[in-house]
């Protein structure tokens, strides 16, 4: 027996053992995965036939959203397609203003609450705990569910939509801002306390200058999300262009639905672009990962 052979043999045995264990864990993964898939297929009544039959119908549906446009009568055809341009632009303006107001209100309330939801800034654990739970509920319940609830009380229109997005926004902003607040340097606060400042002074001159850039960049990002939300809450009667879209699709006004969808997509892409530009100006891209 020469020594190199035993080393190789030991390596081979070790490698085989490693491979065996790896194969076993991979097999276990596939068994669990396929079991989950089987349960899901049965529970959701997944049917490949519906998928196969449905796809051509869906593409047909999408195709009918764009009416025939001939090159010779291009201007007339487009004008015909966008017959409700003025009305839809009015709805779009409503949607954008809804998103703006909800962002302002939600950020203002969430911003104030975030100081009470930061462990390093409040002494009382009860205040911290309650604020955190309030923010959690506001954020976890989807905005469209808030909209359904508010529609019950305020009736149909943009008002319940704004309130729904405001509540969701304050939950989300409060949590993000609280995390920013918890990551600040405590030294400026000590300085202000030493100079005789009270809690409000500490927040205003010690915390705010440190957190404001992050707050602003999160707010720009939130505007983007809220424009999407403001479109969606219209589906349950909360006004804006979402309401027009919902009606057009429900009543199968194909070309109207297509025209509105195009407006929505163009708006969302435009807002994404503008907001991204400003966010990058205020803060580096790295700090934006959620």
């Amino acid at each position: 027996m020469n020594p190199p052979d035993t080393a190789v043999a030991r390596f081979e045995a070790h490698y085989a053992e490693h491979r065996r264990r790896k194969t076993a864990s991979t097999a276990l993964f596939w068994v669990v995965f396929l079991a989950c898939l089987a349960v899901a297929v049965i529970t959701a009544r997944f049917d490949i036939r519906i998928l196969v039959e449905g796809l051509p119908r869906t593409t047909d549906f999408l195709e009918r959203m764009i009416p025939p446009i001939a090159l010779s009568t291009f201007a007339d055809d487009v004008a015909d397609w966008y017959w409700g341009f003025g009305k839809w632009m009015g709805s779009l303006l409503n949607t954008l203003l809804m998103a703006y107001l909800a962002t302002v209100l939600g950020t203002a309330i969430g911003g104030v609450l975030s100081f009470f939801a930061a462990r390093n800034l409040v002494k009382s654990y009860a205040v911290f705990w309650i604020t955190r739970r309030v923010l959690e509920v506001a954020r976890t319940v989807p905005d469209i569910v808030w909209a359904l609830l508010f529609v019950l009380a305020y009736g149909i229109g943009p008002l319940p939509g704004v309130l729904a997005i405001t509540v969701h926004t304050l939950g989300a902003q409060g949590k993000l801002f609280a995390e920013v607040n918890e990551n600040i340097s405590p030294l400026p606060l000590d300085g202000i306390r030493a100079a005789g400042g009270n809690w409000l002074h500490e927040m205003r001159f010690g915390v705010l200058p440190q957190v404001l850039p992050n707050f602003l960049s999160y707010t720009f990002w939130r505007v983007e999300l809220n424009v999407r939300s403001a479109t969606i809450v219209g589906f349950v009667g909360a006004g804006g262009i979402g309401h027009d879209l919902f009606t057009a699709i429900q009543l199968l006004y194909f070309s109207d639905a297509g025209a509105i969808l195009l407006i929505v997509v163009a708006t969302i892409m435009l807002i994404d672009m503008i907001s991204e530009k400003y966010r990058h100006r205020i803060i580096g891209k790295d700090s934006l990962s959620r």
Partner: protein
Amino acid sequence: MRTTRTEITEAEIAAARARLPRAFARSSHEQARLWLLSSAAAALTLYCLYRFDFLSWQFIDGSAKFGAVVIAQLFPPHGYEYTPDFLKSMGETIAMAFIGTLLGALLAFPLSFLASRNMMPVRPVQFGTRRFADLLRAFDYLIWALIFVRAIGLGPMAGIMAIAIVETGTFIKLYSEAIENLDRKQMDGIRAAGGNVLHVVRFGVLPQVLPMMLSNTLYMFEHNVRSASILGIVGAGGIGFLLADRLRAYELQEACLIIILVVLTVYAIDYLSRVLRERFIVGRAEPAKISAKPAAP
């Protein structure tokens, strides 16, 4: 040890202020701009408050009604006899999210290679695939669900397809970003050892990107359980249908039970997915990361 305080005279402060005005206050130009911006924002906010009837009786009456009727009637949650129905619907919601996410991932996987700069040399194809993905993502789940409900009928299939379509767009973006961040050295090594394109993908690309892809997919599954729970509001299956139904019928206590169920499920899935991602995927990603780092200086 005693420190002596040197007195600073008013004249010295004035001199410093004259020398470094920006350290004491914003320049008048900046001040004017800030003032203009904030008053414009405030004016717009006021106008919106007026436009959306916040400054009217409708708001006050509605708030009174919201407090007295809606909040008061939500609690305590009620309707425990329907719990089996609710749980079944919740199961359907999770199943929709699972299948939708899986379909999206399967569709996006091949397309993500077309959308990555380092894999797809034909620029228009790469650019086109990216924009196609943007288009799929631009519509919200609910918009797709609404379209699918009209095109293929009510039920969970519409929801599954809505999730699958949006996720295809999201995954093309996420996967192709993972592929673009590849370490070239492993691919070069396999090519140098005589491997063909398939070998390069299987042994050079997949070990690097798979953990990232799995982690992203799991994260989006978590996200999609939330989305799936509201798709039913437009008739696309899942718990949202029961919730909207109970809310519209003013059965608020039962709606409250459903909301609590959804929130608890979302927390449970979040927790499970975080544990899975940290325990398994990150654990499996570690060796790949270590071997990706060159041992030499």
